[in-house]
């Protein structure tokens, strides 16, 4: 049973796995870079929260740094469950792709 995951959720989950030090802005930046779409910070936040709630991400508050006026970041990383879900999704996709009738 694969949990229901939206396309944006899937992308963000993947990006968290890719990006080093994943937090709101870095994920948003990566998203914009890798997909050529724009996205707002609140939207990223929402998705991150949702994924955390589903247990695919976990988060902790980073240390205060000077660069953001001393404000701390909430850092995210994927949980083992997150990895499991993403790989299952991938397998499913591949299975489905293989079922497309070939014409040539």
């Amino acid at each position, binding site marked *: 049973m694969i949990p229901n995951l939206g396309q944006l959720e899937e992308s963000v989950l993947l990006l968290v796995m890719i990006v080093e030090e994943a937090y*709101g802005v870095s994920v948003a930046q990566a998203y914009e870079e890798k997909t050529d779409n724009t996205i*707002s*910070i*609140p939207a990223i936040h929402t998705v991150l*929260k949702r994924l955390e709630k589903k247990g695919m991400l976990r988060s902790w*508050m980073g240390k205060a740094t000077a*660069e953001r*006026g001393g*404000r*701390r970041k909430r850092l995210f990383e994927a949980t083992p469950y997150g990895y499991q879900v993403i790989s299952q999704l991938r397998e499913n996709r591949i299975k489905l792709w293989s079922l497309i009738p070939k014409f040539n």
Partner: protein
Amino acid sequence: MAEEREHKRDVTPPQWANRFLEWYCAPNLLDEVQGDLHEAFYIRVKQYGARKAKWLFVKEVLLFCKPSSVKKPDSTHLLITPDMFQNYFKIAFRNLTKSKVFSAINVFGLAVGLAASFLITQYIHFESNYDQFHEKVDRIYRVTLSSVQPGEVVTPQNTSAVNHPAVGPALQEDFPQVEAFARAVTQTLFINASSITYVDETGQATTFNEDRMYIADSAFLTIFSFPFVAGSAETALAEPQTVAISESTAKKYFGSADPLGKVLEINGELPLTVRGVFKDIPEDSHIQFDILISFLTLGEKWGYDTWIWPEFYTYVLLAPEADPEQLEAQFPAFIDQYMTDIMAEHKFQAEMHLQPVGDIHLTSHYNNEAEANSSEQLMTFLTILAAFILFLAWINYVNLSTVKSLDRAREVGLRKVVGAARLQLIGQFLLESMLINVLALLLSVGIVWLAWPFFQQITGKEISESLWALSVWQELWFWGLIVGVIVVGALLVGFYPAWMLSSFRPAKVLKGNFHHSFTGVSLRKVLVSFQFVLTIILIIGTITVYKQLSFMRNQDLGYAKDQLLVVKSPAIYDSTITQQITSFKTELARHSAIHQVTASTEIPGETIFARNHIWKKGKEKNTDVGFFYLDIDPDFINTFEMTVIAGRNLREEDKVPSFDAKYAKIMINEALVKKLGYSSNEDALHERLIFRLGLPEVEGEVIGVVKNYHQRSLQQAYDPILFIYPGWNRWQYITVNLSTDKLPQTIATVEEEFQQAFPGNALEYFFLDDYFNRQYEADQRFGSIFSVFTTLAIVVACLGLFGLSAFTLKQRTKEIGIRKVLGASVARILALLSQDFVKLIFIASLVALPIAYFAIQHWLSNYAFHIEISVWLFLLPLLLMLAIALVTISIHTFKAALANPAKSLRQE
């Protein structure tokens, strides 16, 4: 490099958006959110430039503003957290149940206040929406007629609700704005009494006497929108000898059979075909009837085109765009065109006005109104009364809560110690006050429900079948009003106690010997005095109304009203009616229980129909004065036990033989003597006066002067009356002066004689005192509404006083103990405890008495005969107030004064 830094410092996220974010955002999210937004902002400045970055920042701040990221209600920022909310409720309920008397007084007092206001609002709503059920109500006007003398203005006294029959048709003819007109005239103008008979197929006859009957134009039913059950409004009255009847009348005569096409016979001579059945006329219609006869039935001979017969209610329907004022402005020319000659002959100037039909019930008090109307004054008065009662209940709440707050000082202290902010405490107490208000609202619904039938009875109006069928339930404004009263009430009465309670200093309160002295005392005194003021005014008002009513009922009317039985003369008669009545009188007079019998055109208690002008012989005609004709026979004076104070009574030989006699012996009453300008009653004797009976002038010789008596209610002054004994009259009433010993037998005798004298007629009779007192119905109703609500007000005020005295005494328990130990007597302590309240009553009366004086003076000036305003009228209520207050507080004071001092002092 320096330039870039400069640049970077310059570009910052919009401060207001940043601050907004800080304001709403939950603190645990603020760091990450704000950090991310700022970081993104600076990245975007580089990417897209400052403007876009700023714009995006604002947009994202707004996007973040959603429930999940908004601050949770927080004790340091908001008044109530869910947890505390629960706690407040718990405490509020515990408080309510802990001091049951206090809560009961508060809740019950408020409930009574709300219920009273609700009832009064309903009544006012009902009274001010008369005739609104007519679809075209905004366009329907009644044309009133005023006859003014030069220099006079239009007043209710010189204006009548009825108009000449020719006015309606002429208005429609002359003015395009007048779409339609309708006349309605009471059947009593044409027939004395009306027995309606229905004979069914089997020959079985059903007969009733009907009096709610009008003769109306066909358009009457289309201008107004009385709903029809059978037949159609357009055609029901379109032909002669047709009739439209109400649903219940139809049932009365025909049972469940189809009423359409059935024939009703009026007075055994005129058949009328039923062409329509309308729903029973609702209570909120200014004109009430069961039967409408088509106007065409009257035939040509009645003179539809007369300009001097003001007996017809005339309604016009104006075109939708017509301006009534502009139409009214053309009336003087209209009147001149048709009435110049008549006005010259009768020496008056006619004026006509358009009266919106919807306004009739509350504003119209002209002569010949179709029904007794209410008044705006009464509505204002009731509004004030409702406000008074609500105020009294609110004051109770404020007073009791401030006093009660002493008990809660410790709670407040503790809450403050553990960190309650003042606003939180205020919130808590406001919540409690809201709770009490809502409880009161629920209770008041019960009270209203129980009181509803009784309320309809005292108002004399069937406002609605049941409480739940009221139309206001569907009105948004009404719900708004209820919510408004509760919310505003709760805030209003809750705020002061809340403010005061929350001001306690915990250190002081918790030390244990918190002293019961705070600033609430003076405010409480003011409020209690205000209650006293209201109550005293209401008591004075009630006593005045009551005394005036009983004065009017018991005043010597100038005739023996208690043993007079009035028989209406028969509806079905022929040309021998005058002789028949004479023999009926003779037959009746033979019985021993019957003292005297007389026939007359009017009886006391009604306005005399015939009026004219009279002047002294030899004087100019323009010295004339107005007077009322009363046709009587020689037995009239003795039957009514009136007095002829000068000259002699009329005798059989004084009968005026015919309508065009040139000479007549007459009697006049004192009021007419005075009006004609004679210096004494004797001076008037054998004087010759000129007036008209028919066309020619009649010379009347005054042979007697009748002592003044009240022809109409005591609200009116004595009418100037001329008494004459005409030989041609067919009389309206036969009045029997009887001994009241064996009343049932005597009435049976009268009935028997009546059947013999006038076979086929139904006997209709009533007692004169009932008939006379019917004029006071409106006053009576006013009196009962007033006294019921005054009683309520006093009850509410007493409740408050009761609670208040209980708590003030509790504070003084120790003081009383010490006094007793030192030798004070119970009486002295009672006096001491009561004096505070007594003082307040006196202060209150200083304010109340002048107000009450002007109010009752104003009210009494409506009555030509009224009670004198005496000192007692003010002293008595004051004493009553004192007594009520003392009795109320003495329940507690006695207990306190009698208590064993050892007990109260041991508490330390």
